[in-house]
Every structure is written in structure tokens, then in C-alpha cells.
């Protein structure tokens, strides 16, 4: 765990400190995202943690040990650092860039080679194609991925990442975020992750630190609670419009209650008499197939089915585009008879907000 207490950093000649009164506990194995407007001290905070700069006041501990008592180079080798400007070594190949810290640590050549290839594949670059290239032969997004791979090379317990996915297109970025989360689920590193992008913060963070200019914490909380209960106007305006819709990415469909729907088998259709106006769900072999109303003959096909593990955000997106305004929740085999409607999601959002508000007052 990393603990910052009473940290202040004033650069020479600065009247207003870049960071002030910073108290922050970063629990082991969690991803803490620093987010805030440009110049609010995000990079400064990272550089304080690995001692690229020394605080004007305050104390930083890593696992209970004051970092000022550790050899800075040894400390930094335990903390992978992805800098905002990437900073690959232009005269070294991609493999040499990634293998730098392992080489310093005295790994043998075979082990380094294997690790380089493993990391390249991990960040989605074909090892055969990229290991021998030079940084100038990469696109911005590829360089960024190499930067991430390089920081992870020696498997450090702590990762400091300064906008690691900033220059990447949305699709690749989403893939890298997913990939990073998948890896993080198994390796559980202590990660301090900087971004400008509140959506990225919500997606990546176990906790989010919202900083205002001057390096003060506006709110330090879980993504759910930051979205549902912003501490003040600054936080609310930083999150911006659509906070509730954003919050939907954090909840799975399986967390809300879907309504079991009245169903009929195809063979029973003839015997169908008056219903209460709501269509019945026709199941074929347990799979949803059509919506039928008495006297309407064939009915309409079921156009929207959703797996249980999609986020409410994706569920909402699908429902808005659905003719019937309903979606059937199905398992891996496509079987199911529970239904969600637009209103189900609205009710879930309201319930969540109430819960967070209760926690905040409790």
C-alpha cells in the first residue's frame, strides 16, 4: 500500500503549490485513478511517489516504509512508470526498450526474450513483427502500448501510469482497457492511473481521486459513488452531463431484477384467448422467438435478447433501439424467459441513487 500524508509540492518560483495537503491511501492491489483538469498536479503526484521529485513537506510510505529511506533507483525498479510523453529510447529496438529493466536486474537473455514476446502479445502487438523495430517506426498508439509493456517488464508490484492510453483510437483503447483489467484481475498490482477522461476513470478505477487545480482532493471515492453522489459542484461539473447514464456501465444486467414473463409454446397458440393486452412470449425449445397478442396471428419476432453479463449501459442502448421496448434475458444457450424494459433500468438507477445517498448520510 502507498500512503501519502500531508504532501505538499512547491516548485522553485511557484507562489501557488502544484500539490497541497495531499492525504491519500492507495490500497495494495487496487487501481486508483487520478483525474482532474490540466495542471491540477496529476503528473506531479506520480513523480512524488517514485521520487523523481521530492516533496516540500509531508511523507510518502510504501508498505509502511518511508520512501525517502530507500535508494531511489531501487525504488523505481519496483514501480513501473509510464510517462505521459511515452519517452521510448529512440536508439534501441522495441525489444531492447522493453528489456531494459530486466537487463539491469540481471535476467539472462533467454528469459528477457521470452518476457518481451509475452508482453508484446499482451498489449496486442505481434512479437515477430515489432520486436526488432525502432520507436520511430511505430505509430503513436503503438508507442504507447510499448511504453506500457516496458513499465510492466520486470513485473513490478506497483505501476504508475500517466495517461497510458491517451493517443489511441476509441476501439483500440477500449480493447487495451479491457485487456489491462483482465490482466489486473489476475496479477492485482497496485496501480496509480492518471487520465483526463472521466469515462476511463470510471471504467478502470476501483477508486477515483478527483483533483482540483492546486492539487487538492475534491473527492476520493468509488466510481459508483462519485457518479451517484458528487461531493460538490466542481465534481458534478467535472463529471458533466450524463453522469447517470455513465454510471450504468458499472452495473451488470444480472444485478437488476428482470420480470418473469408469461409464455406460451408454439403448439398452444390456437388455444390463446384474450390476454390482458400485454403480449405473450412464444418460446421455442426454451428460446424466445416471438411476441404474440390474442387474435394477432403470428405476432412480431423478438428482436432484442441480452446476456446476463452485459452492463446496464449496453442494455439501455439495446432497449432504446428495440421495437417492442423489451428485451429477453438469456443464458449462454440463448434460453430464458425473464424480460427487462426501459422502465426496469430507470427503476434500478433510482434505487442505486437512493442507496448511495443513504450511505453518504450514514
Amino acid at each position, binding site marked *: 500500500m502507498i500512503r501519502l500524508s500531508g504532501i505538499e509540492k512547491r516548485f522553485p518560483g511557484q507562489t501557488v503549490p502544484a500539490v497541497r495537503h495531499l492525504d491519500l491511501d492507495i490500497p495494495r492491489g487496487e487501481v486508483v485513478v487520478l483525474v482532474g483538469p490540466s495542471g491540477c498536479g496529476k503528473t506531479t503526484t506520480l513523480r512524488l511517489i517514485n521520487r523523481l521529485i521530492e516533496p516540500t513537506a509531508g511523507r510518502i510510505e510504501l508498505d509502511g516504509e518511508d520512501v525517502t529511506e530507500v535508494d531511489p*533507483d531501487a525504488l523505481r*525498479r519496483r514501480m513501473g512508470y509510464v*510517462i505521459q510523453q511515452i*519517452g521510448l*529510447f*529512440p*536508439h*534501441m529496438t522495441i525489444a531492447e526498450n522493453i528489456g531494459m529493466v530486466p537487463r*539491469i536486474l540481471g535476467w539472462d537473455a533467454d528469459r528477457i526474450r521470452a518476457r518481451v514476446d509475452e508482453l508484446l502479445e499482451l498489449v496486442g502487438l505481434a512479437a515477430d513483427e515489432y520486436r526488432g523495430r525502432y520507436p520511430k517506426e511505430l505509430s503513436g498508439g503503438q508507442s504507447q502500448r510499448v511504453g506500457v509493456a516496458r513499465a510492466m517488464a520486470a513485473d513490478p508490484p506497483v505501476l504508475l501510469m500517466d495517461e497510458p492510453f491517451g493517443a489511441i483510437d476509441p476501439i483500440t483503447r477500449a480493447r487495451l482497457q479491457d485487456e489491462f483489467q483482465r490482466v489486473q484481475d489476475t496479477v492485482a498490482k497496485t496501480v496509480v492511473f492518471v487520465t483526463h477522461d472521466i469515462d476511463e476513470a470510471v471504467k478502470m478505477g476501483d477508486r477515483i481521486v478527483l483533483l482540483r487545480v492546486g492539487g487538492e482532493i475534491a473527492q476520493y471515492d468509488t466510481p459508483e459513488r462519485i457518479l451517484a453522489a458528487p461531493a460538490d459542484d466542481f465534481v458534478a461539473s467535472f463529471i458533466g452531463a450524463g453522469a447517470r447514464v455513465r454510471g450504468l456501465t458499472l452495473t451488470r444486467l444480472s444485478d437488476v431484477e428482470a420480470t418473469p414473463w408469461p409464455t406460451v409454446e408454439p403448439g398452444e397458440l390456437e388455444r390463446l384467448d384474450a390476454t390482458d393486452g400485454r403480449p405473450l412470449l412464444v418460446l421455442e425449445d426454451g428460446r424466445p422467438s416471438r411476441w404474440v397478442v390474442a387474435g394477432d396471428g403470428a405476432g412480431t419476432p423478438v428482436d432484442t435478447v441480452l446476456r446476463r453479463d452485459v452492463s446496464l449501459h449496453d442494455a439501455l442502448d439495446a432497449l432504446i433501439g428495440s421495437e417492442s421496448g423489451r428485451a429477453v434475458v438469456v443464458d449462454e444457450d440463448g434460453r430464458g424467459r425473464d424480460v427487462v424494459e426501459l422502465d426496469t433500468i430507470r427503476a434500478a438507477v433510482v434505487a442505486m441513487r437512493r442507496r448511495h445517498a443513504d450511505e453518504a448520510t450514514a
Partner: protein
Amino acid sequence: MNLFEYVSSRQELVVELTLQHALVVALSIAIATIIGVGTGVLVYRRDRAARMAIATAGVFLTIPSFALFGLLIAPLGLGYPPTVVALVLYALLPILRNTVTGLRSVDPAVLESARGMGLGRRRRLLRIELPLAWPVILTGIRVSTLVTLGIAAIAAAINGPGLGDLIFEGIGRIGAVNALNQTLTGILGVVVLALVFDTLFFGVRRLTTSRGVR
């Protein structure tokens, strides 16, 4: 006798003087490189020190070569020692200045990531900064080499080695038989050496700079 016949008739002497010339320049450049790059490494992060070092090296260049060679006779005598010392002094400025420029032009982001990865002062210098500054430093060494090739000819005035002998002797008896040929041979030798050294530098540059920074 035309120039060609003249050179063939004294082939042995011409070859020997050319080799001497090349050797004294190579030796001086080697020493100047050690001193220049070493000083550059020591001063490039200190603004005042860097300015003072460069200014001092600049002063040597402004001393007329003839006068400098003469001044060095008293402490060092004649021949190789004063020649090498003088040439080193002339060669310093381009090497030192380019070392400082090269080291300072390394991208700060590259240094920040190197520091952030836990590369200490020495490793950063040897693995990152010097390799990245090397093309610029090498250019300085090349310029120094060309400058000293010319100046080395003056060393003949103090009994120094090299092609200067032919030039001075030829000039001294100008109008006499073959005097012009003698002078021209000396000059031609220097020009040929310059071309050879230049080619050499081209090869060294290719061999010693990474494809990533070419």
C-alpha cells in the same frame, strides 16, 4: 618534370610524410576527443561551467597557429611534442561544443523515463545520453580532424612531422627547379588525407549509430 613525375621520383619520401601527417593528426584527435568529450560530460549540466569551458577552448582557436607552435618550443622543444599539444588545443573546441550540444539535445521525456525506470546517473549517461548525442559528437570530431589536417602542415616550422616539410621547403626556394611541384605535392597530400579521413568518418558513423536515430 611534371607533378606526377615528381611524386613518382620521391614516392618513398612522400608516402612517409603522408603517414606521419595522418598519424600526428589521428593521435591529436584521439587525445582531444578524450579531453573534449570528458570535459563536455563534466560541464553540460552546469551552465556557467559549460560556457567557461567552451570560451576557453575558443581562445586557443584564435591564437595564430604559427605563434602557438613557436610559443610551445620553450617548454616542449621541437618535433612531435609541441605539434601534438598544439593540434590538441585546436581540435578541442568543435569536439567540446558538440558534446555539450549533443548531450543537451537529448529529449527530456527520454531522460524522464530513463530516470523513472531506475537507471542511475552512470547508466543514463552511458546507455542513453552518450549514444543519443554520439552523431553530434562525431560531427565535432570530424570537423576537428579537417581543421587539424591543415594546421598540422604548419608544424614543419618547428621541425614537426608531416607534409608541411614539402610545403615549407618548396615555398622557401620558390622559383628553383621543382619548387612548385614540391609545394603542390604537400598540399595535394593534405587534400587526399582529408578525403580519406572523411570517408573513414562516414563508415564509422554508419557502424556506430543505431538505425533508430539515423
